[in-house]
């Protein structure tokens, strides 16, 4: 079935070549990083995690969001998702792969990474994160591939896949919960030390992941003969809207708790992010970009007439995707390190090699997504033709 990815129009191959170019630059930078050390990034002793781990965190959410298509289809028999679910599962595969690559590039001694298996440490959340991420990747490959294979052969989905589908639902929740626990269990990092971290992660994941899926599906419906179906897109849009509202609500909870209690440690990181602290405010502009996009996105998705217009739907989804990315892919990780344990403010900005490596991994994700979706599109087109 995978051979369907080998035939395509010139623009398909040009897109792949373009992605490989980006990947090539990043891989070069990665070799440089391996040779020189992680000091070539903007990270330092105070901001010891940067854009890599932030992307990892964001993409775990994108991966988990496939469950928002799986639940209505398999638990509530919402048949209109029948044709799009595989696109969600393939998006999850691409996202989990990117997560793993972001860990590889972030680690100081990647050749020793298997020490996590050689010396398993059940008290470390990273140990569980490794298990759930690998498991989620395998589940999605099994489910996505076998269901699409059955579709291609015009057979009913094999029965043995069903348990894996049901397993994928709690598993998706687990990957993002465990990722939230990486942060929420650390003493002395006030921005992260919050019980709503996992719920907030899930809410923003269920907004940003499906938003990306809608964007991808809209592009697919333009460049191919596959039609995801108007109703399917509208239902996903509603999911995005309510998930984003819950996400914003939870952010509000954080702000209330910090500022009404008036505890300096809890207020400082939020002040740094939104208004700047002691004259430092590199993230402030990002936050005030994210905030309007978040609210405009929600508003546009709430109004049915706006939501039904595909141009507006695309804009709303892009807004929410961007707002969530700024929140989790930029602010959350860096904000947690500010101020440092000595209450000093050391700021962070990514360097060129760091950004090139980050783009390369996004490029690898896009490449995997393109190839997998190409296969799925071809199967769907053949179905429609008969």
């Amino acid at each position, binding site marked *: 079935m995978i051979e369907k990815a080998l035939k395509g129009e010139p623009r398909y191959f040009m897109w792949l070549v373009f992605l490989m170019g980006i990947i090539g630059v990043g891989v070069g930078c990665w070799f440089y990083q391996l040779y020189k*050390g992680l*000091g070539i990034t903007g990270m330092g002793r105070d901001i010891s995690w940067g854009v890599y781990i932030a992307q990892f965190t964001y993409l775990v959410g994108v991966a988990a969001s496939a469950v928002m298509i799986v639940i209505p289809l398999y638990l509530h028999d919402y048949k209109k998702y029948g044709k799009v679910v595989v696109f969600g599962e393939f998006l999850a595969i691409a996202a989990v792969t990117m997560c793993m690559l972001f860990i590889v590039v972030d680690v*100081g001694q*990647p050749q*020793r990474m298997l020490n996590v298996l050689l010396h398993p440490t059940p008290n*470390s959340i990273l140990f569980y994160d490794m*298990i759930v991420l690998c498991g989620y990747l395998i589940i999605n490959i099994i489910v996505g591939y076998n269901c699409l294979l059955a579709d291609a052969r015009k057979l009913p989905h094999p029965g043995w896949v069903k348990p894996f589908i049901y397993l994928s639902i709690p598993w998706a929740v687990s990957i993002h919960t465990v990722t939230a626990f990486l942060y929420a269990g650390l*003493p002395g990092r006030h921005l992260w030390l919050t019980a709503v971290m996992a719920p907030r992660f899930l809410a923003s994941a269920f907004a940003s992941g499906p938003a990306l899926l809608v964007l991808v599906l809209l592009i697919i419906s333009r460049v191919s003969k596959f039609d995801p179906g108007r109703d399917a897109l509208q239902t996903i849009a509603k999911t995005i809207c309510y998930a984003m509202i819950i996400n914003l609500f939870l952010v509000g909870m954080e702000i209330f708790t910090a500022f009404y209690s008036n505890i300096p*440690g809890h207020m400082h990181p939020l002040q740094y992010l939104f208004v700047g602290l002691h004259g430092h405010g590199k993230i402030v502009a990002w936050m005030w970009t994210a905030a309007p996009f978040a609210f405009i996105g929600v508003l546009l998705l709430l109004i049915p007439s706006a939501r039904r217009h595909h141009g507006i739907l695309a804009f709303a989804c892009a807004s929410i995707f961007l707002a969530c990315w700024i929140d989790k892919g930029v602010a959350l990780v860096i904000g947690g390190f500010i101020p440092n344990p000595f209450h000093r403010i050391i700021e962070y900005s990514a360097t060129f090699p760091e950004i090139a490596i980050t783009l390369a991994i996004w490029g690898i994700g896009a490449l995997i997504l393109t190839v997998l979706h190409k296969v799925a599109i071809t199967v769907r087109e053949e179905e429609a033709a008969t």
Partner: protein
Amino acid sequence: MSMDRRQFIKIAGMSALFGLGGKGAFEFLRPGALEASEHGHGVEYVPEEPAEVAKRWGMTIDVQKCGEPGVVEKCIKACHSTHNIPDFGDSKNQVKWLWQDDYEHTFAGNENSYMDDRVKELPFLCLCNHCDEPPCVRVCPTKATFRRPDGVVAMDYHRCIGCRFCMAGCPYGSRSFNWFDPRNALNQKEYNLDFPTRMKGVVEKCNFCVERLAQDKLPACVEAAPEALAFGDLADPDSSVRQILRKRSSMRRKLELGTKPSVFYLV
């Protein structure tokens, strides 16, 4: 028994999964048992009961004595030359084992707006607190950092994968990552040949001089400034540190986090 390809792959896959997961499960049920049994592999090794060791090493730092000229500097110099600590010359990549800061920052969160001028200006020596409940050990995915039975929180540089989870976990900023090869920031002629350097991509920190404790010596900083620093067994009521702590009022950093530090500041 005949087996087709499909069955073979299934069985092989399942056994591989159990093989990978099995070690984790074993570790969960009987922590440490598996590694202990691995140690003996192929090598005759006769373990001997180690000499009497402390139940919990601890340190007191007399901040007033540290205020006398040269005291802090000689402690830091002793530590750095003993442990081949690189000097990258910038705050971003800096590796710190023992360093000084002021009260306001060392005890961040407990600032007193109307502090007496004397304490405000005094230098506070900062180092790893060798916590009783170390968050860095809790989060490390490979047991590269671990708490020894004598209370020292140690680092195994051979095993560290450089994920820096411990740096996010440590509320004291006591851990440093080797962002570059530390040998580039060391003077080869000044190497202490009795102690290794580190390599790029691993985390390091103060080790309470375990290599000196093994030879019944005091930590290098304590030896350099015995008038200001004291070191001993916190579990022994008659030890030097306990006697000092009985007489003087002391402070520890960020007690509210429940980490139970072993470093006491006498003011």
